[in-house]
């Protein structure tokens, strides 16, 4: 799996026997001795954190599936029963629900890190592409899972999102009803959403394997974006980065535990404690926080199909990012002008999230009475910037920006002149 010379020596007869037949211990050992750049900072710990998130979701999810009933008449009650009556259900259900938010929180940091340090550039395009696919399937899994408690937001969220497919010209309505298994979101929909929500995390796990494989094959990027040139530039993954990851995981779990034990509902919506009612739409349908920026992009255009296409494009543009950025310099540390654009890009993403939560016609930034910038206008500006960053700023800056002088090697950057 990792492309460095193996140093594993089986010591005992059984391990020697196994090593000749299936070198699985060797694979694990090579993983642990994998030479990692010696200058990785804490932003690099989110890969490990995300592995933990995926495992948490799979384990708590399998347990929840043992108690959950995927039927429109019973689903809502069964989730309440898990929280109230099932032993430790009060703990396991919020772990899964909060866990989804923590998973997205970690993945967004992981993605911004990749953007900032140019981890998508040659020869790591496949690492980035698999990451994009994983993110896409994560979004699908998150959406499907949110439908299962069958509250008002579950139902209407599912109605709105499956409505996207109805906007496809000509075949839209048939496609939508095929996905739903009926004329509207109903029992067949809930059933298949449950089946797919159970399946997709295992698909993600397989893709994570490919993501890590591609990363080990190309080598890890690092904060200065200069490839390791000698043995001095690297450290063994264990114990150096296992310990660093473990510390970061500990801090991350503190935040996780805070939400699970003190604010289990803070990241959800009160409306989801009302059982789904196809006759009544909630006042404001708002997706989970991690979809808000895309929701804002969707609503930034007054046309249904255009809104959807723009939202899809917002994710599709990530897939072609390695070929949009023309700069050979990976790390933003050496790109003074683009670095500022990147900071604006992060701010634009937060603004989009804020606009997604607001009502389009409401005033976001007031000046004077009744006047000001509406969420709609703000969302349009932020959407324009979001796309401009990928389609204009990155291609152009790579051609006109003069990067700062870069150190000769990782060791030089870390230790200066000292050897």
């Amino acid at each position, binding site marked *: 799996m990792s492309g460095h010379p193996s140093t594993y020596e089986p010591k005992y007869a059984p391990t020697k026997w196994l090593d000749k037949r299936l070198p699985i211990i060797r694979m694990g050992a090579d993983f642990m001795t994998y030479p990692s750049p010696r200058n990785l900072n804490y932003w690099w710990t989110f890969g490990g954190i995300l592995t933990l998130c995926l495992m948490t979701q799979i384990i708590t999810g399998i347990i929840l599936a043992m108690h959950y009933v995927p039927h429109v008449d019973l689903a809502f009650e069964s989730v309440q029963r898990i929280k109230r009556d099932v032993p430790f259900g009060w703990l396991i259900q919020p772990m899964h629900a909060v866990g989804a938010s923590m998973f997205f929180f970690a993945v967004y940091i992981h993605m911004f890190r990749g953007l900032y340090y140019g981890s998508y550039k040659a020869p790591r395009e496949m690492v980035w592409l698999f990451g994009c696919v994983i993110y896409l399937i994560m979004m699908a899994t998150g959406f499907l899972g949110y439908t299962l408690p069958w509250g008002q937001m579950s139902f*209407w969220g599912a*109605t*709105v999102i*499956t*409505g*996207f497919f*109805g906007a496809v010209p000509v075949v839209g309505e048939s496609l939508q*009803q*095929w*996905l739903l*298994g*009926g*004329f*509207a*979101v*109903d029992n*067949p929909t809930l059933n*298949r959403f449950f089946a797919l929500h159970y399946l997709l995390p295992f698909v993600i796990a397989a893709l994570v394997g490919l993501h890590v494989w591609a990363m080990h094959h190309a080598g890890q990027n690092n904060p200065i974006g200069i490839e390791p040139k000698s043995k001095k530039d690297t450290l063994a993954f264990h114990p150096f980065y296992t310990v660093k990851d473990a510390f970061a995981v500990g801090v991350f779990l503190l935040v996780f535990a805070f939400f699970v034990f003190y604010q289990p509902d803070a990241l959800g919506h009160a409306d989801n404690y009302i059982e789904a009612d*196809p*006759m*009544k*739409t*909630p*006042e*404001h*349908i708002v997706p989970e926080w991690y979809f808000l920026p895309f929701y804002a992009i969707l*609503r930034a255009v*007054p*046309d*249904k*199909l255009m*809104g959807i296409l723009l939202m899809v494009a917002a994710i599709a543009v990530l897939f072609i990012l390695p070929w949009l950025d023309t700069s050979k310099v990976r790390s933003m540390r050496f790109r003074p002008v683009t670095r500022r654009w990147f900071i604006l890009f992060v701010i634009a993403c937060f603004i989009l999230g804020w606009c997604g939560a607001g*009502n*389009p*016609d409401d005033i976001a930034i007031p000046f004077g009475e009744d006047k000001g910038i509406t969420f709609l206008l703000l969302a349009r500006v932020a959407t324009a910037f979001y796309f401009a960053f990928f389609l204009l700023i990155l291609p152009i800056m790579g051609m006109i920006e003069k990067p700062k002088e870069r150190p000769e090697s990782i060791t030089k950057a870390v230790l200066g002149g000292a050897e």
Partner: protein
Amino acid sequence: MSDHTDNSHEHIDEDKRDFIYIATGAAAAVGAGALAWPLVMQMGKAADTLAAGSIEIDLSKISEGQQLKMLWRGKPVFVRHRTPAEISEAESVDIAQLKDPQTDDERLMPTPDGKLDPKYLVMVGVCTHFGCVPVGEQGKVDAQGEYGGWYCPCHGSHYDTSGRIRKGPAPTNLEIPAYTYISDTVIKVG
């Protein structure tokens, strides 16, 4: 596999091999397609979903200005008994300025004597944008949108007293379901 045979003198007919490759590939493709078809089609509407088709509504129970909401095929159906003011407003609109041009008459089904009764407007109560249920209950003027009909709270589509889209992102007017008058006061939807 165990016994070693010398194949060096054997004649290989390349054309025959190509034929076998193509024939095998074609048979496998047809087989895969034939298997994929039921696996894809099972996702569609089941027979019982299709059969749960129609409902009857007694119009005489709806008083003027009132709206009845009933569940039909998992979606709400609105029946509004419109006031004369609402009817005249719906009829006076210049349809050239509409996003989805339709006259009020085109949005009604004939009664048993072949005439149109503009008092009763029957619609699928699902916003044509992303499928939310628009609000428009009598007495809540601010809930009826800028055109006095219906307002979708999800993304701000305004419908007039004929259920036509007037403002906001929805692409088309509220859908009129297939319904027939089975007597002067009873309709059958579906």
